[in-house]
């Protein structure tokens, strides 16, 4: 009665405060994130998210194809671009998926690591009192002699099978032998998952401190380049990379040999180069498709090759100029299309450069290494068996003086359309060593070709760590898949036959057979003590 009155007077209990609710929510969220089901969902999202990266052209792989996609799908492409569909693997949403996956991984594995260390440090547990309730059990193991000696025999037997064993003496003179093995499986599991983390960190390191750069290199000592950013056609630097950290090497292409099969398929490419590092002497080297040039902090790879015609133009004032122009390939037989430009042609030595009356000269050209017939526009074979250069002359304002960047492989169409640059003749056919005269008496000569190669220079300091991580990953995986967790117990009473039982952490095929074979050997061992 008095308690009831006291109860009624006490203020009603308060519910959990907001802080508590948030903590509870956070804990539930964390537990959800680190559960294996969520890991499964995230794995699938990762696989799903990678699919558009393989179907749509990606900027880092082929910027030209992306540009082509923009031209082909003018309405759709900008929206896809906003969703980072042309740069999937660096996009925020892809990164979110794998970062969440790794958070889930670490959050799940740290407690497992703690539990695993604790389990490894523990001794095998005492035998259960009812061995016949275990999934595998056997009785009637005859003990011929002293229980202590039998227990010792069993201990040696099980140790030989790589079990950890603990023999305990029971009250009354009996013994139990507890054995367990299979901790390696969990070790492999943890090693595998942490190797994934290592790989991720190493990839991040590589992208921060590494760089790549591409360049087209024409044969000749006058065409060499050095490892400076301005000399590259295209480059990408990691966030922590600056020019100062890049290896100071210079490279020139001395010779390039390509051999082809009868069908025109390539059979070998070899580039002979020479390089210098800093102020050092020149070293010769060979670069092939699977054999890059490996310097201390950079590697140079051979990607493609083609022809660069050498053309000499003598203008109306008698000055001649020689230009080596790389022509990009159009097909596998190395039909090449390009442009040879002479922006300094036809400048009157008396008047000097006159912007109102530019008579710059350029030729659009097709170079065919092996002409099959005079009217064919494509090459029949990639090597120079029957070369011919087709040039179409243009004269006027090339549009190079405005300071706007243009392609070196094509004329500025705007200039042609507005009439500032005009075609001044029909197609000229030239064989190596041949020459022709234009309408104003000037001469153009085809001196031959030089080969060009495309190279990429790469540096990735995280590479070796990625390799180590990958190897450990594989080792952990194999150990994890092969390991079997098993506990075996023997109970040896003070007198009479012993009994045995076994328990597997998760059922695996061969569990029963393994237990049977252990018991068989135990019978043999223990009966003759």
């Amino acid at each position, binding site marked *: 009665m008095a308690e009831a009155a006291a109860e009624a007077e006490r203020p009603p209990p308060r519910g959990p405060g907001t802080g508590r609710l948030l903590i509870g929510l956070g804990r539930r969220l964390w537990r959800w994130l680190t559960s*294996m089901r969520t890991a499964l969902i995230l794995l699938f999202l990762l696989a799903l998210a*990678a699919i558009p990266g*393989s179907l749509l052209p990606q900027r880092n792989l082929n910027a030209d194809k992306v540009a082509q996609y923009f031209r082909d799908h003018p309405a759709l492409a900008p929206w896809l671009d906003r969703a980072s569909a042309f740069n999937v*693997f660096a996009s925020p949403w892809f990164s979110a998926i794998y970062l969440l996956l790794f958070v889930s991984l670490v959050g799940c594995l740290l407690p497992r690591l703690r539990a695993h260390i604790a389990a490894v440090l523990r001794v095998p547990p005492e035998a259960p009192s009812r061995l016949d309730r275990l999934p595998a059990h056997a009785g009637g193991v005859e003990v011929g002699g002293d229980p202590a000696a039998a227990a010792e025999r069993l201990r040696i037997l099980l140790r030989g099978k790589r079990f950890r064993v603990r023999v305990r003496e029971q009250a009354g003179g009996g013994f139990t032998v507890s054995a367990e093995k299979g901790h390696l499986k969990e070790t492999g599991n943890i090693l595998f998952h942490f190797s994934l983390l290592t790989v991720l960190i190493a990839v991040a390191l590589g992208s921060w401190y590494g760089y790549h750069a591409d360049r087209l290199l024409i044969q000749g000592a006058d065409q060499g380049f050095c490892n400076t950013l301005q000399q590259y056609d295209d480059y990408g630097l990691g966030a922590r990379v600056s020019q100062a950290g890049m290896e100071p090497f210079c490279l020139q292409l001395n010779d390039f040999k390509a051999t082809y099969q009868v069908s025109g398929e390539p*059979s070998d490419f070899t580039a002979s180069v020479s390089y210098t590092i800093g102020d050092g002497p020149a070293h010769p080297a060979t670069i092939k498709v*699977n054999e890059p040039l490996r310097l201390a902090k950079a590697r140079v*790879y051979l990607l493609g090759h083609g022809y660069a015609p050498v053309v000499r133009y003598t203008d109306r004032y008698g000055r001649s100029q020689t230009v080596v122009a790389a022509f990009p390939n159009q097909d596998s037989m190395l039909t090449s299309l390009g442009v040879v430009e002479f922006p300094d042609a036809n400048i009157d030595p008396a008047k000097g450069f006159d912007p109102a009356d530019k008579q710059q000269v350029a030729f659009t050209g097709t170079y065919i290494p092996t002409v099959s017939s005079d009217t064919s526009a494509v090459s029949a074979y990639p090597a120079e068996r029957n070369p011919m250069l087709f040039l179409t002359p243009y004269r006027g304002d090339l549009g190079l003086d405005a300071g706007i960047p243009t392609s070196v492989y094509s004329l500025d169409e705007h200039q042609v359309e507005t009439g500032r640059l005009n075609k001044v003749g029909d197609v000229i056919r030239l064989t190596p060593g041949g020459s022709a005269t234009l309408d104003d008496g000037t001469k153009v000569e085809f001196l031959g070709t030089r080969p060009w190669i495309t190279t990429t220079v790469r540096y990735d300091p995280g*590479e070796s760590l990625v*390799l180590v991580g990958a190897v450990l990953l594989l080792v952990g995986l194999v150990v994890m*898949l092969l390991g079997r967790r098993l506990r075996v117990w023997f109970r040896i009473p003070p007198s009479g036959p012993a009994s045995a039982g076994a328990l597997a952490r998760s059922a695996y095929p061969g569990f029963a057979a393994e237990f049977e074979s252990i018991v068989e050997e135990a019978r043999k061992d223990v009966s003759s003590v």
Partner: protein
Amino acid sequence: MSALSNDLLVVAILGYALAMLASAAEYAFGNRGAVARVAVRQRELVGAAVGGSVASPAGDATPVAAVAPEAVAPAEDGPVRGGSEAARVAVWAGWTGAALTFVGWLAHVACLVTRGLAAGRVPWGNMYEFVLAATLVGATAWLVVMVRRPSIRPLGLFVTLTLVILLGVDGMRLYTNAGPLVPALNSYWLKIHVTAAITASGILLVGFVAAALTLVRTGYDAGRTRFPYTLGDRLPAADGLERLTFRLHAFAFPIWTFAIICGAIWAEAAWGRYWGWDPKETWAFIAWVIYAGYLHARATPSVKRTIATWIAVLGWAAMMINLFGVNLVISGMHSYAGVK
């Protein structure tokens, strides 16, 4: 030599096709066959445990329920107790199927070897040869499984069906003349990376067949009656099939991981970067993630085994897209298919 290789391909396809027909005969005539007996034995043991009478599968003439559990012979391939002519024909057809599979396998090996001799190099330099080699690994894996577990032999019908389809497509659509390697492939890594990829693909092929059959049998057990599930009454118990699926995938997954790692090492030597999200690399990664998901799902108690098996089937779909879609449809740096 190249012509000999092509002739041997035809012999191999014929061998597998005839083996398939023989296995089909075993299926058609043999609801008394080894397959059903294993299936029936499982059900009868269950029935005896439950204490009820056992219903005979899919209403047929000869009653099966009359066979008491203890009386079912442990030798699953012997003649049926009180069996009919059809049953004996069925068992004989089954053994003929196995023998024909072996003959087809021999021709397949010879085909690959002569192709290698004709080209003067290891015979996996283009898509035609890749499919040839991967299907050979699958056929070998199947023969190994058959030797270790003879009761699984009738499933050869589905394995030979898959082999005939893949080899047929290979020969008719993907064929190219034997020739030397393009320079990009001319590296010792070809023997390591591509061999590992071929081995893993072949084993995953058999794993896919096992996964598909697990799903058919599980669906049949759950009471479905549409077409694929009607095959279920002739299949062994779902448990055994599911364990077989897991073991095949657990064996192949490290090999596939190794293939991807070797591919990355080779890519560094050839293209300058160990991973560039090239379409083939991406799809290999997608297949790896899906198979990792399968192993994960199987280790998660709250995920049903059927769902895990569907994931394995999805993984094979990714492998097929990786092989056919990426080689033929998408273009990337991996375009060594050689297919015109």
